[in-house]
């Protein structure tokens, strides 16, 4: 084994130990080495752009929940990748706007909220995420209200929009019904048929 490989092996072992401790603190079972959610969480932590204080066990647990939720075709790997990509983007943006002294206490709940919100949306449910105040509600930078942190970014809204459009397309594929003008014309035809049948009914 080469020097760099040995170093990487030590780092992996230390990381595994840290994860085990986090899981123990959460009361979770130890993870199998081939756990996909763990692999994902580790890859997120290994990303140089990710926060150094990212809670691997929490991300792993949430990823596990996402996999456990019964899904339809809109819950593809691609859809889940979009969610996690958004989390990455959010992490990057939070890094640039938060001081190190407060980063762990403030960013972890927000990151956790974002993860849960997006997982819930991907599962077809609506979570009430905490959003950034609209421009009109901003006050002076020193007021308490101004300290409410933005919690939904443009990227996250973009993910929601993409999910909504994908859902619409999937619904159209599933129903096979006409859209737009054709749908209204089909409705008119069906209504006319029913009217004719109704008028032909005695009594």
């Amino acid at each position, binding site marked *: 084994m080469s020097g760099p490989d040995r170093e990487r092996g030590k780092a992996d072992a230390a990381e595994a130990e840290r994860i085990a401790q986090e899981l123990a603190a959460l009361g979770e079972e130890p993870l199998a080495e081939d756990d996909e959610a763990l692999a994902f969480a580790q890859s997120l932590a290994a990303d140089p752009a990710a926060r150094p204080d990212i809670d691997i066990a929490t991300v792993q647990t949430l990823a596990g*929940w996402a996999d*456990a*939720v*019964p899904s*339809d075709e809109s819950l593809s790997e691609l859809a889940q990748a979009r969610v996690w990509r958004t989390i990455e983007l959010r992490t990057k943006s939070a890094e640039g706007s938060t001081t190190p002294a*407060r980063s762990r*206490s*403030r960013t972890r*709940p*927000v990151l*956790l*909220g974002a993860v*849960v*919100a997006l*997982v*819930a*949306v991907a*599962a*077809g*449910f*609506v*979570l*009430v*995420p*905490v*959003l950034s*105040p*609209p421009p009109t*509600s901003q006050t002076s930078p020193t*007021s*308490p*209200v*101004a*300290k*409410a942190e933005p*919690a*939904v970014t443009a990227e996250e*809204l973009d993910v*929601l*929009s993409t*999910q*909504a*459009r994908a*859902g*619409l397309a*999937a*619904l*159209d594929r*599933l*129903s096979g*019904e006409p859209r*737009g*003008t054709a749908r*209204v*014309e089909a*409705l*008119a035809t069906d*209504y006319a048929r*029913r*009217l004719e049948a109704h008028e032909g009914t005695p009594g």
Partner: protein
Amino acid sequence: MSSNCTYVATLAALLGLAVVGCDDNAGSQAEVAGVVEAEEASTPDARLQTHEIVPSTPTADGLAYIRAVAAIHAEADAPADAPADAEGSAQRVAALQRGLALPVPEGLPEAEILRLGLATRLASAWIEGGEAQRAQDLLAPMLAPSRSVPLDRSSAEALVLLGDAATRTGDDALAAGSYGRSIRMMSILRQELE
């Protein structure tokens, strides 16, 4: 499935509340109250109340209305060889506005779906024309979370358009709430189809 999903949704909601409540560096109570107040003010309203559109007893007036709406849609469809110029866009918008102004005959619940379809096309045209606020003002009352909306594709599409309009006007809460409601609506519709 429902128990799993209920579990996840409940857990998600609880953790979402934790986002508001677990900042251990918050200062005075007034400061915390200010933050919470600001967050509540910008929290999306994700309520979704739906109702089924049950086919009504057909009437001649009902048929005339549906056919009139179909004619409006056809008029708003841009011919394949027509240039997408401002004049053509204005004509389509005018046609759709006429469609929304059509008096709805009594006893025609299907009209709710038809009006949503017209409003969605009109909102789309306004958004494309840079009038997102106008689109939002049109759709928001029709799709208000406090109102029940038809369980139909037209509602889901209208909610997506409302999300688009709100995104452009900077109303993040309305945008997120609308997208979320549309996703939930489509989830219900898909379950019915499967």
